[in-house]
């Protein structure tokens, strides 16, 4: 049995179920309570769970993310939200120096079971400070787990796992996926953290991607299929810990790789994956790995400019053909 719901609804359901299940789960963030979130994700939560558990914060990200760290140390399970991932800049310390490091620095004494949800991504003409995909920064910081789902089913199942996980988890949601309506299993389920998923089987080349670019990659794969190119699409789903086994398996089969993400290309997590494959699976590769990412620029506002700043299916198709020398 399954039902068709939007990804934002799936995310809301995950939080709702976990709040019912565990009274230590609380939500903090701007406009999460009375308004029910700017994307409507927590509508009704405050009435149901009370203002103590669904907290409208002031615009004080360092403060409330830092408070989430403190509350998590005490055994709460805070689910904080940054209205956009771009705002990690105003709370980088509690994220990168506190949540990520406190367990290790105290020799394992402290456990920080918190989740920070954050919409990400470009394509909404929100300009430079509201359109970034900053997963690389989080992936670079040991101590954080990083998740970036592409489907409603995964968003729900992974968010539930993230809330139950005892480590700080960065949970990145693409704004332009929110409205997608997709099948989600009925009833209780979780999706394990750290497992990639083959979204399309193929033999000629592996596209490795995550978040919204998985959809574009699948679209590209369909188009390429018409030309007789048989592409496998691997959705990483979790970025840290990385499901290396699934990458090895797919690359050992196809011997060709394209990594696709919306990030600024220079210093991207896509680059890390490209490097790891080139370093450790060199002999499996028939051709150099290709990356399809954003440009090394600030996200522009104007539609014709923004449109060249994140990968579209046509860009992916071009890269696949380049790798396959077609």
């Amino acid at each position, binding site marked *: 049995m399954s039902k068709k719901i939007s990804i934002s609804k799936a995310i809301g359901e995950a939080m709702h179920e976990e709040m019912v299940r565990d009274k230590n789960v609380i939500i903090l963030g701007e406009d999460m309570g009375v308004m029910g979130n700017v994307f409507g994700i927590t509508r009704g939560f405050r009435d149901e769970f009370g203002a103590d558990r669904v907290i409208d914060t002031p615009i004080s990200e360092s403060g409330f993310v830092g408070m989430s760290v403190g509350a998590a140390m005490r055994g709460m399970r805070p689910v904080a939200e940054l209205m956009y991932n771009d705002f990690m800049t*105003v709370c980088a310390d509690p994220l990168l120096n506190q949540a990520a490091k406190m367990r290790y620095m105290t020799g394992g004494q402290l456990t920080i079971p918190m989740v920070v949800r954050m919409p990400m991504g470009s394509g909404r003409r929100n300009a430079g400070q509201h359109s970034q995909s900053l997963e690389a920064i989080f992936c670079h910081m040991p101590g954080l787990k990083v998740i970036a789902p592409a489907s409603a089913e995964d968003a729900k199942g992974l968010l539930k796992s993230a809330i139950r996980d005892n480590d700080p988890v960065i949970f990145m949601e693409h704004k332009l996926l929110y409205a997608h309506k997709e099948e989600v299993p009925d009833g209780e389920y979780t999706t394990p953290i750290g497992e990639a998923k083959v979204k399309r089987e193929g033999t000629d080349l592996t596209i490795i991607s995550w978040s919204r670019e998985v959809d574009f990659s699948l679209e590209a794969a369909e188009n390429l299929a018409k030309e007789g190119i048989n592409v496998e699409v691997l959705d990483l789903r979790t970025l840290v810990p990385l499901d290396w086994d699934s990458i090895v398996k797919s690359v050992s089969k196809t011997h060709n790789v394209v990594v696709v993400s919306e990030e600024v290309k220079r210093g991207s997590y896509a680059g890390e994956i490209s490097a790891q494959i080139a370093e450790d699976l060199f002999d499996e590769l028939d051709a150099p790995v290709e990356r399809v990412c954003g440009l090394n620029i600030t996200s522009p506002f104007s539609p014709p*400019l923004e449109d060249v700043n994140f990968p579209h299916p046509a860009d992916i198709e071009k890269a696949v053909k380049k790798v396959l020398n077609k």
Partner: protein
Amino acid sequence: MVKQKYSKEKLVGFYRTMVRIRAFEELAADCFMKGMLAGNIHLSIGQEAVAAGACAAMDKEDYMTTTHRGHGHCIAKGGNIDKMFAELFGKKTGYCKGKGGSMHIADVEGLHHLGANGIVGAGIPIATGSALASKIWKDKHVTVCFFGDGASNQGVFHESLNMAAAWHLPVVYVIESNRYAVSTEIHRVTNTEFLSVRAKAYNMPGKTVDGNDPTIVYEAMKEALDYARSGKGPYLLECETYRHQGHYCGDPAAYRPASYMEEAHKDDCIPCMRAKLLKGKTATEKDLKAIEDEAKAEMEKGLKFAEDSEWPDPSEATTEMYSSDNERSVVR
């Protein structure tokens, strides 16, 4: 008959500015609702008196920083309507050549407008740094920093005001308190009636005034600017006003009690001033109608300019990232 404190010209000038801002915002809203604009816009309808009064008190060469809700300040300081509309449309003729959009309008050379900002609070240290430059150069310019009630809860508010006070920097912090940060009423996330009380933490002057009357804002700003310009240091001015629309254009703002908009309409700066001007015989119905019509026409012209303008060429996406070595720096 009481002698009027301000000349007719001044008073009508306030009115004109407010009307022009509202005409701009309403036309922009119209475009947005018709799907002509991409992204999001944040309108200052209801808050015009703050921009009009404050900018009128500023010297032409004074600097300013604004916010995501910054169209009004730009117009009040003398901004070019054509370039503003073109920027909202993302056209190449816009203030930022389409690269910034509504939330990033700046006019550095012309208006000494150092930029709107998409990060709440981020303009506060920037304005403070501009004031630091003025202090070092002894150039007598004051920097005015506009931001919302919500922004005053960001850490940079504290850091910046503390330094400005310690070093007596020529900066005026203007809180446009419309009482809401998106859906969050300020008193739900603070513990004081007024935000200006925070000035006490830095031993600097702080004042709360009615932000719906441009003459009151003007007067308070004059005092604040004089204070800052004379080398005494920063000033915190809170202007209480109303945000008529939702947070962004299209937000129904269902989270606000009905009473908010009732008050907002009662205190609406434009009809209130209109009535006063007529009552005091400072202007005739005809004068005011002319101002209103002119404003509308000016905005229509701006809109047409924007519509007629060209889109930036996609190749421009990679220009202007760096002032030198741009190409190499964006390639790898």
